[in-house]
């Protein structure tokens, strides 16, 4: 078997999710090649070549892939991937965008968002917002798969020595073009891969109050998240949303503040190692999954939390 992993990156660095996907590829077994498609991605290809377990890195470096347009990536990956038994990428917004195009162009099914590998053709994935877990067998000769990064421990980023090969394949479908982007600027760690996440919910009452959480987050080196209720209420932008309709996270420590714990939120964070909940409603469902629960008014508890943390950190 031979597996092609499509690297996730932002043209400046390799995303950790790629290492999780390589881990999923190792669980399937076989030679693992990594495709790095983007613009000016030499350094990223070198980083991918150092990842544990990678056999060969293929590089498609062209302006056509610079903004990860699905129409162009879809054609590229379908062509490069047709000789492989499996094509894998992370179930981030880029992978979710282009990968189904690859599957359709190859006339095969896609298995989305796997969290476990049972065998080379059988995979486990959550359905119904994580309220059920399905084991699915794929019968196509090429398995096209997106991987939920939190389902797999990443392979080591260093130690490998894969060869790097430049590809001369330029696919520009001419259907779409990049207009612009607004990236949330933050010095905090990336929500999807952070070791600690602090999230606020509707109990925060407004966006201004999230500053309180930011101070605690900076103290702990945590990423900031939010419940869908807080996003829908307009307190914070959608890219902070944790839950089935937002990001799926599994940090070492997840701190839920003013979050009641709707099913859709729990689906996005209940694989966290340790969960802390601060909520004034002692009946809130979040307490049913929290390792440590504090029934308190968050506007008193959060400043105290910050003070106590300063003593020990």
């Amino acid at each position: 078997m031979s597996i092609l992993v499509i690297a996730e990156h932002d043209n400046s660095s390799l995303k950790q999710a790629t290492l999780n996907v390589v881990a999923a590829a190792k669980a399937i077994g076989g030679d693992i090649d990594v495709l790095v498609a983007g613009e000016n991605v030499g350094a990223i290809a070198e980083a991918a070549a150092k990842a544990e377990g990678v056999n060969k890195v293929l590089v498609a470096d062209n302006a056509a892939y610079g903004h990860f347009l699905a129409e162009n990536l879809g054609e590229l990956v379908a062509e490069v991937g047709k000789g492989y038994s499996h094509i894998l990428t992370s179930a981030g917004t880029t992978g979710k965008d282009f990968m189904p195009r690859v599957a359709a162009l190859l006339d095969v099914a896609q298995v989305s968002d796997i969290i476990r590998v049972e065998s080379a053709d059988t995979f486990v994935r959550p359905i119904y917002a994580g309220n059920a877990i399905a084991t699915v067998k794929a019968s196509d000769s090429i398995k096209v798969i997106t991987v939920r990064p939190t389902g797999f421990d990443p392979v080591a980023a260093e130690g490998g020595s894969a060869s790097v090969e430049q590809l001369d394949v330029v696919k520009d479908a001419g259907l779409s073009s990049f207009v612009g982007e607004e990236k949330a600027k933050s010095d905090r760690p990336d929500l999807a891969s952070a070791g600690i996440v602090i999230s606020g919910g509707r109990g925060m009452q407004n966006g201004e109050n999230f500053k309180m959480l930011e101070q605690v987050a900076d103290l702990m080196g945590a990423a900031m998240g939010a419940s869908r209720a807080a996003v829908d209420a307009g307190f914070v932008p959608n890219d902070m949303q944790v839950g089935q309709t937002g990001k799926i996270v599994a940090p070492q420590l997840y701190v839920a503040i003013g979050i009641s714990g709707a099913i859709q939120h729990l689906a996005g964070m209940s694989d966290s190692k340790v969960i802390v909940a601060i909520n004034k409603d002692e009946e809130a469902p979040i307490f049913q999954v929290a390792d440590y629960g504090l029934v308190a008014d968050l506007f008193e508890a959060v400043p105290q939390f910050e003070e106590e943390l300063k003593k020990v950190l």
Partner: protein
Amino acid sequence: MKVLVAVKRVIDYNVKVRVKPDNTGVDLANVKMAMNPFCEIAVEEAVRLKEKGVASEIVVVSIGPKACQEQIRTALALGADRGIHIETDEEVQSLEAAKLLKAVVEKEEPKLVILGKQSIDSDNNQTGQMLAALTGMGQGTFASEVVVDGEKVNVTREVDGGLMTVALNLPAVVTTDLRLNEPRYASLPNIMKAKKKPLDAMSPADLGVEIAPRLSTLKVEAPASRQAGIKVADVAELVDKLKNEAKVI
């Protein structure tokens, strides 16, 4: 311009999902069904395009058993002009759904196809992208804003880390994210009127598509449940536990 909207009948999002005791699937007997929430957003967006004078006709299509006509009627009550029901009792997976929709696109020749980004039952997030690839169209997935401008459509997308805007040649496929709009409720007079709007039924065979699933579900289980921990008395105890017991700070 003509807009095609695809909608799916799924379990109502307020219903608690229960796995069947024999692990063959989720119990849907006597469970309330509804239009997939992302599809409601797709219908709403099409109706708003019509209200702005951008769309001239809205055709709504659904694939599945006879009961799907309820969801088509809902879309008609919300402002769609006519419905197409592709009737089948078989399980239809994303690739086949995309092939069926491609056949409808070839017949109807819409300028814009709007779908939900995913259905809340299978959570695949595939059909819109597959349809776009099969029909050779560009795609604006996870849309939070859709602006039609002449022969192009600008779609602002919710992506990891922020927003990204792409320009697509028409015809194009758009899939909706949560913040694109807030769907309206159908009024009673509109529900009555919707009963008289045209609804064509056809089979997958009529469209020349064979239903042959590539994925088989071996079992469906309830997720491992997490045990509730302890309640701490105050913040000092919380920080102490995190440092000395859980050792995560």
